[in-house]
């Protein structure tokens, strides 16, 4: 099924040195701290952002989520000083942003916004090259970087390099927008509802890609959205904001889903919190069963019949020569079969240990029963069963009702294995 990339919340990190450089030479995230930050727009009585203090950990995706007009954008734009705070201090990697020239500060902070904001009179390559040019890179280095970034965001270099923005779909424009934001390898990335204007399927793909990128890049990403599901999917931590950016709850998605801090947060989390938790759990976190009869594709149908009758099992799972599951075969298919390569029916859906339980549930509903699970190289790892998912939901619901879930990794770790 879907190849969902590892969530960044698993805590695995590339080794990095003190300067925040990963072993492969890219710049990893820097910590951002906001201390008593307030913004009062001229002419308005109430502040748009009122006394916000928060720490955005290095190398994590932090989501600012909240209703429209609550001050998310204002909070985010104060980090790169597109908006100057009325009072308070913002530090990036320990450095006070007020001590830097704003233009220079911004060149070290990636910035991606809802309509992508690509320069219509520049080609894709020229759009991406803007910041490297400002930083005085030489042409060769810029060209190489543009190609590398296009590749990174999943756009074919030959096809897209010399196109103009209007020749791209909304999703492709967003990809270029992200590439442009990453161009000079900044430690920090600010994203203001970057996927808000694309269709749901494209949005899902872009979210998956962002997670994949982040699992390699380990940037500090501040991501604004009003979509709580998006927050749950992408966030290492979520800050649920209320009026004037008041922090109602700032925690991991698991903890917020399990124990919303108050009714406002609970209302924002919405119905089906335990179902949403299924998107946070991976197939590898739950128990797989090894009870299915597996047979090699080269075995003779007669031998398989023999095996099935011995195990009192009506079905066998056919594995190819690299032990990847490929077909289900029923005992009654076997008498007429000449080879396992054609007997029975091909698999419609396979999930990997990386898939979310939500994906697994969908696959099970489509298959009408247990679904084979594949490991990292696509080899057979076991089957996942509906009862397992139902048990998991029940456990989550008990935790939720009991309110006994702990902060950080509460719900998930308990379920693992």
């Amino acid at each position, binding site marked *: 099924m879907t190849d969902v990339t590892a969530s960044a919340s698993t805590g695995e990190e590339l080794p990095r040195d003190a300067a925040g450089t990963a072993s492969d030479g890219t710049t990893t995230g820097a910590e951002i701290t906001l201390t008593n930050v307030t913004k009062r727009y001229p002419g308005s009585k109430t502040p748009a952002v009122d006394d916000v203090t928060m720490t955005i950990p290095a190398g994590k995706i932090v989501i600012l989520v909240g209703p429209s007009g609550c001050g998310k954008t204002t909070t985010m734009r104060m980090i*790169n000083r*597109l908006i100057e705070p009325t009072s308070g201090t913002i530090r990036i990697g320990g450095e006070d942003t007020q001590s830097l020239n704003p*233009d*220079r*500060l*911004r*060149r*070290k*902070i*990636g*910035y991606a*916004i*809802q*309509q*992508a*904001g*690509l*320069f*219509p*009179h*520049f*080609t894709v390559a020229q759009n991406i090259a*803007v*910041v490297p040019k*400002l930083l005085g890179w030489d042409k060769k280095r810029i060209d190489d970087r543009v190609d590398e970034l296009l590749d990174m965001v999943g756009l074919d270099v030959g096809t897209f390099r010399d196109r*103009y*923005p*209007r020749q791209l779909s909304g999703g492709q424009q967003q990809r270029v*927008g992200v590439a*442009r*934001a990453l161009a000079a390898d900044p430690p920090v990335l*600010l994203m203001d509802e970057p996927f808000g204007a694309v269709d749901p399927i494209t949005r899902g793909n872009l979210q998956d890609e962002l997670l994949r990128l982040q699992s390699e890049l380990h940037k500090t990403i501040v991501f604004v959205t009003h979509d709580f599901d998006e927050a749950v999917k992408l966030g290492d931590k979520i800050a649920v904001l209320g009026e004037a950016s008041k922090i109602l709850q700032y925690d991991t998605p698991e903890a917020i889903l399990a124990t919303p801090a108050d009714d406002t947060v609970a209302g924002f989390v919405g119905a089906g919190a335990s179902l949403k938790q299924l998107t946070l759990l991976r197939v590898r976190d739950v128990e797989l069963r090894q009870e299915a009869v597996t047979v090699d594709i080269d075995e003779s149908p007669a031998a398989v019949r023999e095996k099935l009758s011995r195990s009192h099992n009506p079905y066998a799972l056919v594995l190819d020569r690299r032990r990847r599951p490929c077909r289900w075969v029923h005992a009654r298919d076997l008498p007429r079969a000449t080879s396992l390569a054609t007997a029975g029916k091909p698999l419609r859906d396979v999930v990997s240990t990386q898939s979310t339980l939500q994906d697994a549930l969908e696959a099970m509903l489509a298959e009408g029963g247990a679904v084979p699970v594949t490991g990292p190289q696509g080899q057979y790892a076991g089957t996942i069963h509906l009862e397992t998912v139902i048990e998991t939901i029940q456990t989550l619901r008990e935790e939720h009702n009991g309110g006994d879930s702990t902060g950080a990794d509460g719900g998930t770790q308990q379920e693992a294995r």
Partner: protein
Amino acid sequence: MAPFVNLWEYVVDRWDKLSLQVWLHTSEVVQATLLATVIGVGIGIAVYRSPAGSAVATALASAVLTIPSFALLGLLIPVLGLGVAPSMTVLVLYGLLPIVRNTIVGLSGVNPAVVDAARGIGMSRFSVLTKIELALAWPAILAGMRVATQMLMGIAVVVAYAKGPGLGSEVFSGLTRAGSANATNQALAGTLGVVVLALVLDGIYLLINRYTTPRGIRD
């Protein structure tokens, strides 16, 4: 056909003088357009962020146009004397309106998200203005220049009354000598010359537009 044969002979006969007038006329109009562009774009940049400022600038530039060119010239001659100065001033003032208006329209038509992204990735205010906003407003500004040039072609004839250069002097001397030999030819040559020049310059504008509009924003 006789008058046109006469006109043709007249033009061939006086080609040296006429070609100089054509050149002077063109040069005056082009210079006035360029000067009006510098001033008009400057005004546009100064006011486009403020709706009130934009309205005032457009209203003032329109007000200039409502003053008859002759009257404006009459007001300027006592101050600036005869010759190039008053004619040029009138031309530049008349050329402002289309350019100021189109600059404002062009600059405020730039997608705010594009400007926000430009600032957000660290372009300076000046770079954003020159490389993004003015570049994107350029087709509109150029269209304003084109309208200005067309207008100034005709107005330049009138302001030649102040002893300014150009085809206007042909028209005026033809008209004042009405009845005498070649007077009609002289006036006609001047008038037709202006029409032909206007067409030629318009063609040049189309070419400039073609070659200076970036491919990404060309229709």
